[in-house]
Every structure is written in structure tokens, then in C-alpha cells.
């Protein structure tokens, strides 16, 4: 090898990647400009600039869409990037998600005192990664998009450095995320070895022309790609990181992650497997089938037992991933458009839900107990109504996009896999339960202190219990009506705590569950019936008279009483968050009543290469 090898650089058609350029350029300019502006000015300027950049990205994505519909799809940058209806629709989706997240993040950043452009910058970089994944026509470009998306998200998850949980979430996400990326790259390497190219269209062409005698290498590569994608979309059994990361990350970031990371990863998943490996569908369909079944069932099943709203929504997002997998499993044009429709509907529902959770998280972003949602409708009717509608939409209620989304993926699945559609319907029914539980809890009034009926309030009992029942005394001072089992005698009290426990679990009353757990533990230690009776009585302890009661109950009761008072005050809803929630709600309900435009939008969002 002497002579100089000239490598021809490809012609780059910048208009093909204009949405990515807008977002990345906006991020760089904002980061540079942000350091020049005064700190007080920075927060508002950053939010306005980010919203403007996202709106611009939305505009160019819509222009791309109209360009594709009038002039047809094409590839660019030496066939590494493809511009078709599919990529344009995902770009529109990601731009909308970015816009809404900027609005939600503004209130969060102010409340937590971490104002600055950094979060917006990272979110825009991450969103551009999702767009790159959606328009990639080469496995290595998919990988680059995946990493641009993920690396920015690792930092975003750790964004609030004052919360220990935030850093823990980031590290867990980072380790498992980069592990899955490494698996993904090895999968690309094996596919490259088997087909001689990493270009998606050329892989499809190679598979159409050649019948592999020994396709072990290709199948191994393909299954590693499935694993990599399944990690990113949080499909069971590769979902372990999801609940912890969703719970630990700052709430606006969680909403963004749930919407954008899933949209980008699913876009690439659909394109790679339907465009490139479409001819091998009999090989990969069973794997996706199994993934979809366990994802649907585990996601719905584990969401039921969660006591933290963010964890519950994390499992709900796993369940949603199962529904999107139905469209992939169908491997038809109809399946692709159904999956896209689902992702579109899901984005607005999930960002809206996490916007409500962000607002209700209060300063410190920690008030995410399901029990703290009790009686929300009385304190903040508008917020409760918005959350209830968004949750019902996620459950697939009529007159919301959630129904049409579920309907379309199930119809796509029912064409050839009836059992899978049945599993999906069962999981939708289970999922409806935990969404409804929160919705009903919000409309259940908090009983006024001392209103628990038929309970004697023996303060001396509490004193007599002493340290042994300290746990029981931690029951919230504003006596919960659920626990007022009518005055138990020494004989029957044995079953009462278990009953109350079951009931508390049922109503999602976490603090009572914890108190009763401790009580039951105490009962196991000491089976003396008199103590049992006293313990039973103290659980029903309504609000003790100030002074006497608090002294007897000790500091545990006092702090909880104060905490309850704080929880009872309505939170201030930042105007921009209200706008974001309103927009999500409007899209979910209006397009639910009038599904025509979005369904036709999704039906025209076809892949350029379908074998």
C-alpha cells in the first residue's frame, strides 16, 4: 500500500437533517449565550429560547413532512440518513415533547433553585439524538443517535445534585445503559460481519439476494440488537433500571425520558427490524412476541402494588412499551402506523402526567406518595381533574387518544396473533385498575381531624403503650377513616390489624401500611391480648387534643401532624406548567374526540424501505 488513498467525502444535504441541526445549534448557542447573561435573567431567557428553538424544530419537521408527502421520501448523506414520513412524524413528536418539557422544567428549576440553561441544553441535545435515531439509515448512525440521546440523559438524571436519589438513578441508568450500548455495538459488529454492510437498505438488499447457508452469525447479531433495543425501550426482562431511574430522576426529566427516549428507541427498533430484517421476520417475531407478553403482564402487574406515583408511572410506561411492541410484532405497515400513533398519544399523556407529578412534588421533589393524592380534588380541583383525565387516557378511556392508540395496536395484532391481542386486553384491564385507583383516591375526601366515628380516644392508652407501640403512634394524627375498625375487644383484635392492613394497602394508604407493618411486627413479639387491644385502639387514635396528645404521642406524631398540614395546603401551579398540562390535555381529549387527523397522519408515516 503505497500511493495516497483519496476518500471521497459524501455530499451532505443539510435540509435532510435540518431538525437535528436546529436543536443542536440551539443547544450550543444557548450554552454559549447563557454564560454571558446575568443569572437572574438566565432562567427565563433560557426557557423562552428553548421553547422557541423547539417550536422552530417543530416547524421544520412539519415542513419536512409536507416535502415528503409532495416529493416523496429520499436518503441523504451517502444513504446514512433517510427522510420519510416515519422520520418526519417522529421528529414532530420529539419537537412537541421538547417544547412541553421546557415549559414544565421552568417551574421545576425555579422551585428547586437550580435555574440555568444547562437542563434545557442537555434536553435539546438528547432530543436531537432521538431524531437521529428516527432518521438513521445505517446501524452506526442508529448507535450514534442512541448515545447522543443516552449520554445527555445520564447527566439529566443526575441533574439535581442536591438529591441523593438523583445521583443514584443516574449511576444505575449509566451502568445499565452503557452495558446495553456495548451489547448493541457487538450486535452491529456481528451483523456487519454476516452481511458485509451496516447500511439498513443494503442489509435488506443483501438478505433479499442471498440465502445464508449458516446464518448463526446474523441471528446472534440480530438477537443482540433486540437486547440493546429492549433495554432502551424498557421491555421486560430488560426493564430493571426503569423504576429506580424514573423514581430517582427529577420529575420533568422523567417525563422527558419516558417520552423521548422511548420514541427514539422505538423508531429505530421499528425501522431496523422491519426495513432491514423484514425478510427474516419469522426468526424475530417469536422473540418480540415473548417480549411483548411478559412486558404487558409484568408492567401491569407490578404497577398495581406500587406506593410511589413515579414508580407506578414507571411500571405503567413498561406496560405501554408492551403495547407498542404489538405493532412491531405484527411487522406490517398497519403495525408500524399503529405503533407510531401509540407513541404519539403516549408522549402527550406521559408528559402531562409527569407535569402534574412535578407540580405536586413540592419543593424537594419528594412528595410522590400515592397516599398524598388523597383528597386532591378538594384542594386543587383543576389539577386533580387534569391528572384524572390523563390517567384515564393512559388506561384507554373513550374520547381520549389512549383508546384509539390501544385499539389500533390491538387491531394490528389481531390480524394474525389473536392470543397476543387477548393478553393485551387483559393487561389493559389490569392497568385500568391502578390508574383508576389514583383517580378515585384524588376524589376521596380527607376526613376532618377527629371525625372518625365511634372511636373512643383514650389518650391514657397511648401513654400506657409506651415504647412498644411507638410505631402505632406514628399513624397520622388526622385519623384516617379507613382504619376505624369498630372498637375491637381483646378476643377479636387479632384479625383486625391484618384487615386494616389489607384495607390500607387497597387504598394506597402508605403511611398507614407502614405503621401497621410495625404494629404487626410488634404483635408478633408480644401476643398479650391486652397489649393487642391497646395497640388496636391506638391505631384508631384520632387527632389528640393539642398539648396533651402530642406530648403523649411523642415527636413522631408531631412531625407527621405538621407534615399533614403542609400537605393539605394547595401547591402553587407555575403558569408555564399549567400551559403545558393544558396542551397535553387538549391534544389527548380533542384528538380523542376527533381522531381523523392523527390517524391519517400516522397512516401516511410509512417507512421508505419495506421489503
Amino acid at each position: 500500500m503505497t500511493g495516497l488513498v483519496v476518500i471521497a467525502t459524501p455530499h451532505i444535504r443539510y435540509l435532510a437533517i435540518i431538525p437535528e441541526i436546529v436543536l443542536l445549534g440551539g443547544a450550543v448557542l444557548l450554552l454559549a449565550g447563557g454564560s454571558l447573561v446575568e443569572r437572574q435573567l438566565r432562567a427565563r431567557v433560557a426557557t423562552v429560547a428553548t421553547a422557541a428553538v423547539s417550536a422552530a424544530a417543530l416547524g421544520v419537521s412539519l415542513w419536512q413532512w409536507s416535502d415528503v408527502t409532495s416529493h416523496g421520501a429520499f436518503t441523504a448523506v451517502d444513504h446514512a440518513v433517510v427522510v420519510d414520513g416515519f422520520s418526519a412524524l417522529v421528529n414532530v413528536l420529539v419537537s412537541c415533547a421538547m417544547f412541553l418539557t421546557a415549559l414544565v422544567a421552568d417551574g421545576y428549576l425555579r422551585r428547586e433553585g437550580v435555574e440555568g440553561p444547562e437542563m434545557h441544553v442537555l434536553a435539546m441535545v438528547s432530543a436531537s439524538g432521538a431524531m437521529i435515531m428516527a432518521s438513521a439509515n445505517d446501524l452506526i448512525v442508529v448507535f450514534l443517535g442512541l448515545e447522543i440521546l443516552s449520554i445527555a440523559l445520564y447527566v439529566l438524571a443526575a441533574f439535581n445534585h442536591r438529591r441523593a436519589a438523583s445521583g443514584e438513578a443516574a449511576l444505575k441508568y449509566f451502568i445499565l445503559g452503557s452495558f446495553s450500548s456495548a451489547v448493541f455495538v457487538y450486535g452491529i459488529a456481528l451483523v456487519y460481519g454476516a452481511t458485509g454492510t451496516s447500511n439498513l437498505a443494503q442489509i435488506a438488499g443483501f438478505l433479499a439476494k442471498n440465502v445464508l447457508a449458516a446464518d448463526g452469525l446474523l441471528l446472534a447479531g440480530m438477537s443482540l440488537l433486540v437486547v440493546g433495543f429492549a433495554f432502551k425501550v424498557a421491555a421486560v426482562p430488560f426493564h430493571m433500571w426503569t423504576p429506580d431511574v424514573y423514581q430517582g430522576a427529577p420529575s420533568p426529566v422523567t417525563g422527558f425520558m419516558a417520552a423521548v427516549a422511548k420514541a427514539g428507541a422505538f423508531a429505530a427498533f421499528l425501522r431496523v427490524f422491519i426495513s432491514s430484517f423484514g425478510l427474516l421476520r419469522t426468526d424475530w417475531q417469536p422473540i418480540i412476541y415473548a417480549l411483548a407478553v411478559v412486558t404487558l403482564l409484568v408492567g401491569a402487574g407490578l404497577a398495581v402494588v406500587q406506593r410511589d406515583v413515579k414508580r407506578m408511572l414507571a411500571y405503567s410506561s413498561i406496560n405501554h412499551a408492551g403495547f407498542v411492541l404489538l405493532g412491531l410484532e405484527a411487522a406490517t405497515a398497519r403495525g408500524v402506523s399503529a405503533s407510531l400513533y401509540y407513541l404519539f398519544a403516549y408522549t402527550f399523556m406521559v408528559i402531562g402526567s409527569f407535569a402534574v407529578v412535578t407540580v405536586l412534588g413540592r419543593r424537594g421533589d419528594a412528595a410522590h406518595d400515592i397516599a398524598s393524592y388523597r383528597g386532591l380534588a378538594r384542594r386543587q380541583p383543576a389539577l386533580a381533574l387534569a391528572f384524572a383525565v390523563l390517567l384515564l387516557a393512559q388506561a384507554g378511556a373513550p374520547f381520549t387518544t389512549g383508546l384509539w392508540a390501544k385499539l389500533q395496536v390491538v387491531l394490528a395484532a389481531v390480524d394474525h396473533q389473536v392470543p397476543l391481542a387477548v393478553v393485551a386486553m387483559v393487561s389493559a384491564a389490569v392497568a385500568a385498575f391502578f390508574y383508576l385507583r389514583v383517580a378515585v383516591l384524588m376524589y376521596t375526601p380527607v376526613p376532618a381531624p377527629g371525625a372518625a366515628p365511634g372511636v373512643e380516644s383514650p389518650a391514657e392508652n397511648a401513654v400506657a403503650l409506651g415504647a412498644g407501640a411507638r410505631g402505632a403512634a406514628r399513624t397520622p394524627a388526622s385519623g384516617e377513616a379507613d382504619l376505624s375498625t369498630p372498637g375491637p375487644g381483646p378476643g377479636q383484635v387479632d384479625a383486625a390489624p391484618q384487615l386494616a392492613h389489607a384495607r390500607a394497602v387497597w387504598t394506597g394508604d402508605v403511611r398507614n401500611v407502614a405503621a401497621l407493618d410495625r404494629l404487626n411486627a410488634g404483635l408478633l413479639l408480644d401476643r398479650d391480648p391486652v397489649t393487642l387491644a391497646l395497640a388496636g385502639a391506638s391505631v384508631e387514635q384520632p387527632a389528640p387534643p393539642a398539648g396533651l396528645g402530642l406530648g403523649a404521642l411523642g415527636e413522631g406524631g408531631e412531625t407527621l401532624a405538621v407534615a399533614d398540614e403542609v400537605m393539605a395546603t394547595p401547591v402553587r401551579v407555575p403558569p408555564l406548567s399549567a400551559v403545558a398540562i393544558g396542551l397535553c390535555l387538549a391534544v389527548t381529549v380533542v384528538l380523542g374526540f376527533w381522531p381523523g387527523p392523527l390517524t391519517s397522519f400516522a397512516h401516511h408515516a410509512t417507512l421508505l424501505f419495506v421489503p
Partner: protein
Amino acid sequence: MSIGPAWYLGLAAVLFALGAIGVMVRRNVLVMFMCIELMLNAANLTFVTFSRVLGDVGGQSLVFFVLVVAAAEVVVGLGVVVAIFRRRAGTTADDLHEMLG
């Protein structure tokens, strides 16, 4: 006996498996990082080997992308580790148990 491409592929597979097992078995975050690097480099070796076998320079250029991404990942990862373990004694993953998982 000549050393053919199969040897390189085998070596890469062994390295990848060692890395994957290391991530799952080892409990020190820094060692877990190293194991992830090992997995990425196993993929790189596979790319180069196939590039040589296929006579296609594309595979070798892919390695550069992977290298850059690996470097970026390490920068972010070490940043996160420093941010977390500033207040802790050691870098053991088992110490991170604020949340259920």
C-alpha cells in the same frame, strides 16, 4: 499453523463475555466501567477483523465512532461517580440502595 480470522473473532467473543460477566459480578463501579470498555473494545476487534475479511474499509471506520462514543461515555460516567461519591467512602455499587431496586 496460521492464525486466521476465526482466532480474532474468538478472542473478541471471549473478551466480550469477560466484560459482560464482569459488569454483572463485580461490585466496584470503576471496575464495572472497565468491563464495559472491554465489551466495547471486543466489538471494535470484531469490526476490524470482519473489515479485513470482507476487504471493506467501512468496518475500520466504524471503530472510530465507537472509540469516540466510549470516551464520551467515560467522561460522563466518571463525572457522575465523582458527584455521588464525594460524600461516600468507597465506590461500591451495593452502597446505593436508597430506592427499592
